[in-house]
């Protein structure tokens, strides 16, 4: 069954800006799906339309086979949204924010209290339940939004850049938590600018650019399309001239830092051998960008 099925979705804003030019998308039930794209590509508009925050111009959307227009309440009941920006009442307590959301979904008080406790404990926020939300740290505020989105046990969780602006420790713990939620059977759609996040978490991916889906496939399948890998070499001594070695492309960042592009699958041994012959000593090597980032750049620049 499709968790989300989008057909020919178009959106033109009142100022004439065409955000979506007719996208088709399907997300399988239970999937961990990445929706990627550069700023202004249309992904937030698409998420906004799926979660009823933005009116579509045309096209159709169904959520677990409920038509979003005709069976609006049933479709909405399946969705939990964690938006990009903090959007809860900053003067309300953590507990009331989550509890109120349960009320909006029609959950009886007794069950709502139970769900609220469960979600706040899952997000390690139970100790902060009576704290007014504006006094929370940025990471805690993000977790409040996730707890709020989970309080009605949605079948589909939409995470719109959930880790933007949070430190690496919180990001890692949020990744674990997202995986846990997905493992429990909840379908997740993730938009993010951290491509390593999408690469390590998601099984399927769509890339949206300029209002159109430019790529949609399985993550593993997509990564096989990467044509070259880029590395940064840290040199022991300064060099003045860019070395020339057949099959490798070099770029001098500064006189002790060298970028090298290597066709995917090509061995690095000849590279080091020839650099040694040219008396260039390499102290360390690291990835310039991850594989998905490379592919992403290729696709959106096409």
């Amino acid at each position, binding site marked *: 069954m499709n968790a989300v099925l989008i057909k020919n979705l178009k959106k033109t804003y009142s100022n004439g800006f065409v955000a979506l030019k007719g996208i088709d998308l399907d997300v399988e039930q239970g999937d961990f799906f990445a929706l990627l794209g550069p700023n202004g590509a249309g992904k937030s508009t698409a998420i906004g339309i799926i979660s009823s*925050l933005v009116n579509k111009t045309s096209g159709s959307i169904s959520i677990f086979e409920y038509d979003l227009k005709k069976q609006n309440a049933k479709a909405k009941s399946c969705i939990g949204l964690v938006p990009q920006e903090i959007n809860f009442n900053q003067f309300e307590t953590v507990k009331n924010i989550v509890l109120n959301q349960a009320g*909006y979904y*029609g959950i009886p008080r007794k069950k709502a209290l139970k769900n609220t406790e469960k979600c706040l404990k899952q997000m390690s926020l139970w100790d902060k339940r009576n704290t007014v939300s504006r006094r929370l740290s940025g990471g805690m505020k993000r977790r409040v939004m996730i707890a709020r989105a989970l309080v009605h046990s949605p079948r589909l969780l939409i995470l719109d850049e959930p880790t933007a602006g949070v430190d690496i420790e919180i990001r890692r713990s949020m990744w674990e938590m997202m995986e846990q939620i997905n493992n429990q059977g909840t379908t997740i759609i993730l938009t993010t600018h951290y491509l390593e996040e999408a690469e390590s978490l998601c099984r399927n991916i769509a890339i949206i650019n300029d209002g159109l889906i430019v790529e949609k496939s399985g993550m593993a399948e997509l990564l096989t399309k990467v044509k070259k890998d880029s590395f940064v070499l840290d040199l022991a001594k300064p060099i003045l001239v860019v070395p020339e070695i057949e099959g490798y492309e070099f770029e001098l960042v500064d006189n002790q830092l060298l970028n090298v592009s290597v066709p995917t699958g090509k061995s690095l041994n000849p590279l080091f051998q020839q650099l040694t012959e040219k008396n260039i000593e390499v102290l360390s090597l690291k990835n310039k960008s991850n594989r998905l980032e490379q592919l992403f750049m290729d696709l959106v620049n096409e």
Partner: protein
Amino acid sequence: MNNFIAFRTIVGKEIRRFTRIWPQTLLPPAITTSLYFMIFGRLIGERVGNINGVSYMDYIVPGIILMSVISHSYSNVVSSFYSTKFQRHIEELLVSPVSNWVILLGYVCGGVARGLLVGVVVSGISFLFTDITVNNAGIAVAIAIMTATLFALAGFINAVFADSFDAISIIPNFILTPLSYLGGVFYSVSMLPDVWQTISLANPILYMINAFRYGIIGVTDIDIWIAFAMAGGFVLFLTILSLFLLHKGVGIKN
């Protein structure tokens, strides 16, 4: 989807909001009306004498009560719904399966609750200055509820269109307050020259104040059933307009 639970959640949230900030919402009308009664009722009122057979103090009590109901039911909804938009937690409602009519009813009931609570506070203060015997409690309560509903709806529409905090104070300051003062709170329209009497009949607040005055002290300048019809008509019109705006997502959806 249980709409009653959603409705109760919105109303509960609204009531908690205005009771939590009671020094801003409930205390000022108590102080203002005490001053009205002292200055206009006691000091000036004794020199004015009687209007339509009742003392000036008794005459102004219903108007002052209803003026408080109007301004507080309006300001509760306009400020609450606008700040919900401004802080973007309107999105909590938009993503959930709450029907538009439940959202509207919830906010309007919150406004009516505050308007009526302020009305009760102001009535309590008025009894310290007068010894009025209520003429017809049913009529007074009914027109107070209808008036509070009407202005809560008007506040909702103002909030829907507002795009800044200035925009939520323009209508209360430049339309609502003048219409309330010119709606016969402190005088009988029969005291005005003919041309101003005719102009005053275009002011809907005049009808509601007179109907409420009839319910409290049994005195009115106009037919109270016209007042009920007018209030009912406005409530119906503004309800339909509000639901239309919510359905279209005006001011709340991109």
